[in-house]
């Protein structure tokens, strides 16, 4: 008996099947990209320690009430103006020239009733327990933006690169370790010029 030759399987529709699967996975894939505002919490201090005394003029108080309204330095303010207000406060450099506290890189108004220098300036945020989280994040975002703006300005002036861009590059790995080492001391210098001093007061009970 003559052997029957096996018929060849038609593989023409293979591509269609693969395409179908491909489209399914394309649609279901969510490449996770978790990003956010990083923060370091203060450690719990022993109760015997006295909190450091901060002069009133070096303190920038941001109050958020349960209606999500903003009170900055005892004045009502729109959120969109917060960033500039924070920059003005941090960059004020009120200490008179010649003193040890004089800030030679500040470009602010040098108002003696506002902060002495960025190192002394503290931003204190106080929110109500009923403040919405969206508002909380917006306020934090604006304050971090104020610091980033000043750090970028100084790093641009001194080294010719932007602080946030380099930091981002190191985080994502676009800048290799050897280069990152070179940037590190300079970044620390910038961080020292504008140290992030954001304090959060214990929130008040609602209605107080």
């Amino acid at each position, binding site marked *: 008996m003559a052997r029957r030759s096996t018929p060849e399987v038609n*593989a023409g529709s*293979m*591509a269609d099947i*693969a*395409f179908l*699967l*491909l489209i399914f*996975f*394309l649609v*279901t*894939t*969510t*490449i*996770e990209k*978790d*990003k*956010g*505002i*990083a*923060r*370091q*919490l*203060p*450690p*719990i201090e022993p109760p015997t320690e006295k909190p450091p005394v901060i002069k009133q003029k070096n303190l920038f108080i941001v109050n958020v009430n349960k209606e999500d309204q903003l009170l900055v330095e005892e004045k009502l303010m729109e*959120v*969109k103006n917060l960033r500039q207000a924070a920059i003005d406060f941090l960059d004020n450099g009120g200490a008179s020239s010649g003193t040890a506290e004089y800030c030679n890189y500040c470009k602010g108004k040098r108002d003696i009733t506002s902060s002495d220098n960025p190192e002394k300036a503290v931003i204190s945020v106080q*929110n*109500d*327990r*009923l*403040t*919405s*989280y*969206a508002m*909380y*994040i*917006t306020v*934090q*975002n*604006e304050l*971090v*933006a104020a610091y*980033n703006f000043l750090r970028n300005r100084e790093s641009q002036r001194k080294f010719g690169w932007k602080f*946030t861009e380099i*930091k*981002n590059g190191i*985080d*994502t790995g676009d800048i290799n370790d050897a280069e990152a080492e070179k940037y590190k001391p300079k970044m620390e210098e910038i961080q020292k010029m504008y140290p992030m001093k954001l304090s959060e007061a*214990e*929130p008040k009970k*609602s209605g107080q």
Partner: protein
Amino acid sequence: MSKFKNKKGGELPAVNTASLPDIVFMLLFFFMVVTVLRQNDLLVKNELPKADQIEKLQKDRAVYIYAGKPSDRYVSQYGSEGKIQIGDKYTDVKNLKPVLAELRGKLAPILQDKVMVALKVDKETNTGIVTDIKQTLRELNMLKIIYITAPGNEIDN
């Protein structure tokens, strides 16, 4: 001089599509590998607030905490008060400590000191619940936190 003359006429040869399935399969495998099916079934609403001054989270040392109002289908059961979710169940503020300590224990030993707590909180939640979480984290000495946000800016819209 007909040595180099084409055997056929000037017709264009058909493009060989035999390798098309291979290419598609390669893409398919890429997406299959990259796809992460959600491990944590969300029990709370989770619409993140927007921010643009952001940093990237290093996943290997992250512990996730979700918070928000219970999802629509759980409202009748748990009410509409803000809740904390860790893993795939609700956690009370009082139980937060042991649960978090356990999660930290599961990380690689070298990373346990560098643990970063990722807070995924719904934007309509009250800040009070976040404050409670932060207070617990301070007690546990897990001081590095990151508020996970969506790209954008709340002020612009």
